[in-house]
């Protein structure tokens, strides 16, 4: 499976790093707040949750796609003075990327206690768009096709339906059930952007954005910030008893295979498959559907969540729709997915989303998820983001968190 290097046998970060505090703003249209306000809110919630002072932070990682530049964009609002800060940009995977890099730094003993913060103010900056924000060489001449991510995922959906002989109308109905689920979960979450339940009819009758995807197949565009304080695992008990351990991480980056390789099938996302399996190998997860208590994954568009079920081994290939029909991934289902509403309903401020997902798993594992609380049996939760698009290539990142 790991033909190109990463075979899961390396020491890794399992049980070497712990989260001792987290914070997350509401994700919404924060017309009256700047990105600095959002960073202060998220980080101070994390500081208070960990019961530490900002001056205790030894190093920091700051994740944003567009709402900052350099590490100083984090140092400035918090007045972190002269510590090393890395700004991370890996589009939608930025938050996970920053978190994973911070874990590596702590696991190797370079630092004891660090801050990871992701923030985005999309309502000020607009959306990044493939082929325009990219400095990638492919786009410098400007001759190549420009597109929004939604049309890329729409192409994936059409090809997936085609491959498994799912009539497009039937496919749209399956996808709408994912939107209904995530809106329901969001309705139980005071920090979600959209806290409103919808029906299948609402979803199916909504305006088409990029055929076959409609309005409710698309995630919220929002502002927000989230933060985590992580420490060496052996120090964690000094801060709290219910700290959350990093059990495994995985990351995988594609190479424009979907666009350049003419036999690329466009019916799954290989980067997701690889990243999840790296994390499973490190965490020792053999049967994710049975072993995970919950998963918070990158449902930028409903079709993405559907394919994640298959790439992550929650459902057999081509069979995700049967699990959707059976409600397997609903809040009370076999494996609850996107318990906090997901990108769909919690919103997707790009650089903040990865840490928002960890915030949900962290709170769920601690039993603090309120009405959304799932049954914690194995004390394991998965988070996942994925940047890029399926018709060129992506960076997928997964982190599995657990108690003890």
């Amino acid at each position: 499976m790991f033909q190109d290097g990463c075979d899961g046998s390396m020491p890794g970060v399992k049980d070497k790093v712990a989260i001792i505090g987290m914070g997350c703003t509401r994700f919404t249209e924060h017309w009256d707040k700047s990105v600095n306000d959002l960073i202060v809110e998220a980080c101070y919630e994390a500081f208070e949750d960990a019961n530490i002072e900002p001056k205790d932070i030894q190093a920091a990682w700051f994740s944003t796609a567009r709402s900052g530049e350099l590490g100083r964009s984090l140092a400035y609002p918090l007045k972190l003075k002269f510590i090393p800060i890395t700004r991370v940009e890996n589009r939608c995977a930025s938050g996970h990327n920053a978190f994973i890099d911070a874990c590596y730094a702590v696991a190797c003993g370079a630092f004891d206690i660090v801050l990871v913060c992701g923030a985005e103010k999309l309502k000020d900056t607009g959306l990044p768009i493939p082929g325009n924000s990219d400095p990638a060489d492919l786009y410098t001449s400007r001759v190549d096709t420009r597109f929004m991510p939604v049309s890329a995922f729409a192409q994936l959906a059409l090809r997936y339906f085609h491959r498994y002989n799912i009539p497009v109308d039937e496919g749209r109905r399956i996808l709408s059930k994912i939107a209904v689920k995530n809106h329901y979960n969001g309705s139980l979450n005071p920090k979600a952007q959209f806290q409103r339940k919808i029906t299948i009819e609402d979803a199916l009758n909504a305006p088409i954005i990029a055929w076959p995807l409609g309005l409710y197949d698309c995630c919220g565009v929002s502002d927000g910030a989230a933060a985590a304080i992580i420490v060496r695992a052996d120090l964690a008990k000094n801060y709290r008893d219910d700290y959350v351990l990093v059990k495994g991480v995985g990351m995988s980056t594609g190479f424009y295979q979907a666009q350049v390789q003419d036999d690329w099938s466009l019916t799954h996302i290989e980067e997701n498959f690889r990243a999840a399996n790296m994390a499973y190998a490190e965490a020792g997860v053999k049967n994710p559907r049975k072993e995970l208590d919950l998963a918070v994954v990158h449902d930028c568009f409903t079709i993405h969540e559907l394919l994640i079920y298959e790439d992550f081994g929650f459902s057999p290939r081509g069979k995700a729709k049967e699990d959707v029909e059976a409600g397997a991934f609903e809040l009370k289902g076999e494996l609850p997915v996107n318990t906090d509403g997901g990108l769909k309903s919690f919103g997707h401020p790009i650089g903040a989303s990865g840490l928002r997902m960890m915030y949900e798993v962290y709170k769920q594992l601690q039993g603090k998820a309120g009405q959304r609380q799932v049954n914690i049996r194995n004390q394991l939760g998965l988070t996942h983001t994925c940047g890029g698009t399926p018709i060129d290539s992506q960076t997928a990142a997964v982190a599995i968190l657990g108690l003890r």
Partner: protein
Amino acid sequence: MVGVSAYGVHIPIWRLRRELIGGGPGERAVAGKDEDSLTMAVAAALDCVDDVDKSSIDGIFFASTTSPFHEKSVSATIAAVLDARRDVLTADFSGSLRAGTTALKVALDMVKAGSAEKILVTAADCRLAGPGTPFEQFFGDGAAALLVERDAKIADIEFSVHVYDEIYDLWRRDVDLFVNSWEDRYVYTCGYMRVVKEAFSMLMDKTGLNVKDLAKVALSIPELRRGIELARGLGLDPKTQLQDPLMDTVGNTGTAQPLMLFAAALEGAKPGDKILMASYGSGSDAFLFKVKDGLKTPPYGKSKVASKIANKKVLPDYVTYLKWRKLVKMPEPRVDMSVSYPSATAIWRETNRIYPLHGVKCKACGTVQYPPQRVCIKCQSKDNFEEVRLCDKKGTLFSYSFDPVRENTPVGLVNLEGGGRVFLDLTDVEAGELKIDMPVRLTFRRVDLRREDGMYVYFWKATPIRD
């Protein structure tokens, strides 16, 4: 003998019904949103030299009064698209609607003189008339191309004459968007009819031919009524001898019109026929051709003009036309897309992958890939490729979609015959017509840039194969 060996035409798929612009019969051809005289000339050129070894072409000419550039050669762009030899003579002709036939005369005489074996002559126009004026009804957009060769396959040139004329009848100054004109009775009687008749008569006198000897006459015709009046004045039977000027289907395509009508005349001709072609614009060029046997032999016997007239989509309304020609001011795009400007250095560096759409084929594993790579995406061989020309390949639509930020312009992944996948805009098609795996071909178009920075950028798009 020197003459014409191949012809090509491009008639845009779009039509504007004349009843939407103040009456008049039929419809006129309208360049698509992403077409201009450059792209139309490229399309006609490719149509013309489809079966011709491109490296055998010695000259490439472009004629137009509506070149997208006052300064920058379109013929050089056409040469790049064709993968022409580096030592090909390229030249752009302009100044009057006669530019297309003037380019043809230069090509014929160069070949006759022995300085070239084969010259490709292209002409295209996309003229703007004031909204609501009669010219808006008469004009049409289109392009034509002729391949002139020493050993002509389909028509020999027998004679030509050339008349110049100084007159303000129709003109555009360097500051004008629309064509200006004087009173139409003056325009047609003192200009068009007088001057074309002068050239026609001169040719008949010098060749000693009788009007009855002409099988077809392909005349530049600004307006149907005036064309028929002129034909009668020349002693021709408008019903049998006058080539249908395509006014009800295409309109007056400017510099391209005489060449396009000559192509149409060829399609209805038989070997031995004499065809006279005459242009008009600050004078007149008149040519006498004799059709050869080769006209009926494949690949020369294709019916190109009629099929392109039949292949059409009607514009829903006049506003669409105005928007396409940028005759109404639209609001700036609202969604910020952090647009960068096109980079001239990148375009120059990537000339081969942009204009003739070169990809690479791995010498180790045979995988065709686009754009050209240094390291093979399949077998990871380094710098072990041959360049392959992809723009002539047909393909299938692997998947497609559209999004509102691109104003629902369809886009899709195209798998090419013989290998290779390209992600392209789709054009001349509405989203509802698209189907997975439908056959498509490629067409060279202007890129819809959010911000141009003073440049027009061109690239390939995919379009359904309709014929």
